[in-house]
């Protein structure tokens, strides 16, 4: 074969080898075709473990109930028993070490999420008692009068 064919061919072969070498170092070992085949299962397997290590913030009512037994007991006897602690108190994360104190959301808007009256048939919302926030003591925090852990009228402060 002539030189004008061989030389570019050599350059091309070198380039291909170079790409293959770079690829061998750059692409992580766990990257490849996995269980579901090339179409759905072509990925870096180590990423699955990365996601499993993500930090849990919402710890759940069971995490709270031992130290805050009294509060837990009170609310458990009311219709508000279904509301997880962290919905109003915020995510526990590593409480009590971090954060030492949780910030309670006492805004009217929080209560209105359920207690703004929307009489929507076929939705559970229709069965929740509501108030018109523009007529019912506007501007005042609900918890000034109502105890969210004893939401019945006998629990009024």
């Amino acid at each position, binding site marked *: 074969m002539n030189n004008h064919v061989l030389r570019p061919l050599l350059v091309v072969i070198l380039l291909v080898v170079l790409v293959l070498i770079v690829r061998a170092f750059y692409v992580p070992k766990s990257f490849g075709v996995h269980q579901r085949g090339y179409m759905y299962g072509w990925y870096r397997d180590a990423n*699955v473990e990365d996601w499993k290590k993500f930090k849990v913030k919402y710890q759940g009512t069971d995490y709270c109930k031992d130290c805050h037994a009294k509060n837990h007991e009170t609310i458990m006897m009311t219709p508000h028993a*279904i509301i997880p602690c962290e919905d109003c108190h915020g995510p526990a994360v590593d409480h009590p070490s971090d954060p030492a104190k949780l910030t309670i959301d006492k805004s009217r808007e929080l209560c209105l999420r359920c207690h703004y009256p929307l009489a929507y048939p076929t939705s*559970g919302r229709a069965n929740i008692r509501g108030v018109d926030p523009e007529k019912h003591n506007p501007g005042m925090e609900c918890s000034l009068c109502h105890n969210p852990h004893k939401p019945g009228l006998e629990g009024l402060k």
Partner: protein
Amino acid sequence: MISRRDFIKKTVIGVAGASIPVAALELLTPRRLRAEKEDKSRVRWVFLVDTYKCVGCGMCVKACKLENEIPYDANVTRTWVERYVTTKDGKVHADTPKGARDGFITSKIDLGTDGSLDIRKEDIDKAFFVPKLCNQCENPPCVQVCPVGATYQAPDGVVLVDRSWCIGCGYCIMGCPYGVRFFHPVYHTAEKCNFCYHRINKGLQTACVQACPFGARRIGNIKDPRDPVAKIITTERVAILKEEYGTKPQVYYIGLDKEVK
């Protein structure tokens, strides 16, 4: 030399064989998913939403954003709640202000830049809330279109995004028929609900399931015959979203209506 008879025979066989699409040979139902026991993975996560129970409080959206570190005030969210109001004149009104992060605390329907629309109680025919999240499809189109293998289906069915591998091309965001994907405002990579992968693998519920006071959201394993969610999906009347796309979504709904897309 090939004879004329052989030539015609082989042509007919060839054309007949080529005209059967691979998809025609496959039929995937929840029951079959459960039955595939030889499968390496014993888990296939599925989700069940009961729209009758949802009151539109949006605690699930709030919990999801805080749990999964989605910037709270950015108008993106992995899960959201839609409100549907059908009036007596046959019109359907739907909204999801801020993805219902703050719930629905007004009867006014949010029309975006067109303001809002207050509907009188007497005019309502039906009205309800529909929580939405990633369907973790059995045939995820978002995964098919990813050119770099950054998004994929884990062996337990959950579709994940590799943030270190994503180049931010946005094909998957366009490819998802359910519109569940968006760019993460901090990482600038594709972002989506992953059924709280870090939680379900520790035996916890997803953040949205745990935050829901009414039990409107539930997660389960369709391959476990004793799983209460799997039992409902396989024995009761449930619906899925956009069945016609063939994506085989794995979020099942109780009380879905034709207006919901």
